[in-house]
């Protein structure tokens, strides 16, 4: 490791040196292409969502949002996120800890397994739960006999969401923890700290920005997940409809204002996530760089 004496990351001085800079025309071209692409594929749809949502005025927008089924969908989405995000924080931390700090057999396999939800289509993940807990499955009759509802109920939606959002926290933490190594933890242990104190005072502060970023992404996906949830939810209005499912139902009923109003909330969530992330990076940029590098 080099010895970075008083080296605080300063993004403003990271600009490429003159020697590797393209000609002015090329630079303008590249930037134009990038911005045009972003405008067409990201900004434009976002604008249209809000434009459609407010197409019949502000009053109509809020009427739709006040609708009983819509409120229920929002509530369910928040509930699902509130359960699955903490679960995945715990799972993600445990998995990242195991992979980054220990050597064991099957480590590569575990790493691949963590990526599985990314590589499997969400619809398939939903289908797996149907096959596992459905009426025709081995577990189905037993569950029915004991009055446990998983499919077409909140537990199924939570399970599907947990599955789909599992990699976000772990993926964010593994490279970070691997890079940081075990030196700090060993130091804490040698100074007499127990396992919990080591985690609380040393590991957690070292990974907090990565963890927060993982949580933001995990939350955004948990609230926005469509495919897997769609398969297991059963689309019962007012009961098992999450926001993305509700958007689809409204849209299929030619209720454009309703569909886009709910969609605007999800889009709003994405924007808030982005702003939060940017603010964090601006305010704690130096600290984030210090805990990441070094």
């Amino acid at each position: 490791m080099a010895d970075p004496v008083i080296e605080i990351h300063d993004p403003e001085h990271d600009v490429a040196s003159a020697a590797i800079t393209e000609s002015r025309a090329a630079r303008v071209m590249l930037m134009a292409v990038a911005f045009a692409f972003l405008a067409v594929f990201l900004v434009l749809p976002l604008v249209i969502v809000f434009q459609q949502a407010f197409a019949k005025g502000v009053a109509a927008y809020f009427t739709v949002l006040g609708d009983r089924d819509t409120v229920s969908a929002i509530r369910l989405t928040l509930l699902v996120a509130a359960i699955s995000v903490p679960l995945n924080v715990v799972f993600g931390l445990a998995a990242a800890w195991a992979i980054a700090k220990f050597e064991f057999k099957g480590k590569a396999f575990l790493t691949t397994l963590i990526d599985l939800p990314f590589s499997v289509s969400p619809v398939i993940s939903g289908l797996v739960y149907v096959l596992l807990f459905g009426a025709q499955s081995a577990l189905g009759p037993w569950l029915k006999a004991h009055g446990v509802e998983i499919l077409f109920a909140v537990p199924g939606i939570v399970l599907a969401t947990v599955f789909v959002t599992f990699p976000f926290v772990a993926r964010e933490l593994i490279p970070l923890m691997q890079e940081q190594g075990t030196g700090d933890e060993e130091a804490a242990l040698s100074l007499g700290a127990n396992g919990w104190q080591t985690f609380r005072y040393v590991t957690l502060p070292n990974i907090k920005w990565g963890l927060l970023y993982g949580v933001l992404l995990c939350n955004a996906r948990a609230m926005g997940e469509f495919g897997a949830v769609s398969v297991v939810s059963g689309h019962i209005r007012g009961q098992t409809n999450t926001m993305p499912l509700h958007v689809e139902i409204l849209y299929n009923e030619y209720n454009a204002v309703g569909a886009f109003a709910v969609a605007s909330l999800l889009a709003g969530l994405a924007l808030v996530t982005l702003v939060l992330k940017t603010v964090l990076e601006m305010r704690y940029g130096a600290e984030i760089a210090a805990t990441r590098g070094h």
Partner: protein
Amino acid sequence: MEVRVENVRKEFDRFPALHDVSLDIRSGELIALLGPSGSGKTTLLRLIAGLERPTRGKILFGEEDASLKSIQERNVGFVFQHYALFRHMTVADNIGFGLKVRPGATRPPAAEIRRRASELLDLVQLSGLEKRYPAQLSGGQRQRVALARAMAIEPAVLLLDEPFGALDAQVRRELRRWLRDIHDTTGHTTVFVTHDQEEALELADRVVVMSQGRIEQVGSADEVYDEPNSPFVYGFIGDSSSLPAKVEDGQVWIADRPIGLSAQGAPAGPATLFFRPHDVELLDGCGGCIAGTVVNSRRVAETRRVELEIGGQRQWVEIELPIDHPAAQKSRVAFRPRKWKLFPQSTG
């Protein structure tokens, strides 16, 4: 605290890193584990600390078997090669960490912890830097903070892994003297790992020379330099030259000629002759000496280092001559080592 390492073996995935190592460290001693990379010196240090568990053997702190204790219970001060300072904590919090995490009954109050931290900062000559973060310190300053942090828990033993490895030469020399002073002031039993022989010889009371998972020799700087007990130690500590030789009729022979060195008591047969390049006697004529053709000559500080090709066997040795010595101008040089050592071929 006295530390005893008894017949310790350590394997990583069945690959042995230490074979049956035993070592007695006296109370208050400053001892260096010296060896090339892969010699097992860091593994031995980590075993003493409790960061690793021995595959076989015991480690005793005083009369107590420390092998049964966890690292937390051993109460050792460990200074890591890259310091492992907690980057999100100030210097004062880093130093106070070991006191802060003590269980309620033995934990000093916060004000007392702060006072201890300041005291230790004074000791390591960094007074006034309590509020700094590790990223705002130079390498040498970080090293001192790491040492202060390790000493804050009043350790039974102080263990340092390549303490000056990441620092530049100037700072190294300064810190070396400073570490010696600190050791003499505090009297901690101290073990440090280094691959730098100058550091080990200058700083330590005793040097433990290690190679390939074994201890080759334990002794003072004088002992390991003047009385190396194996070809490895002779070659590793200080400059050395060696030549294949044989013992016959109580004489040392090189390339079918006796070279005027008596080998009374040495077993007859092939051997390797070791000597220091600067400790040779230059001769004019050659009736019983080592003679060779100059193939290379370099000026190094106040001496001239000359490489010689000996005999027809293309053996090269290096000797050192005074800068203005006439022999340096010649194409053939004859000499005889003043101090030397023979190792029978089987071990060298």
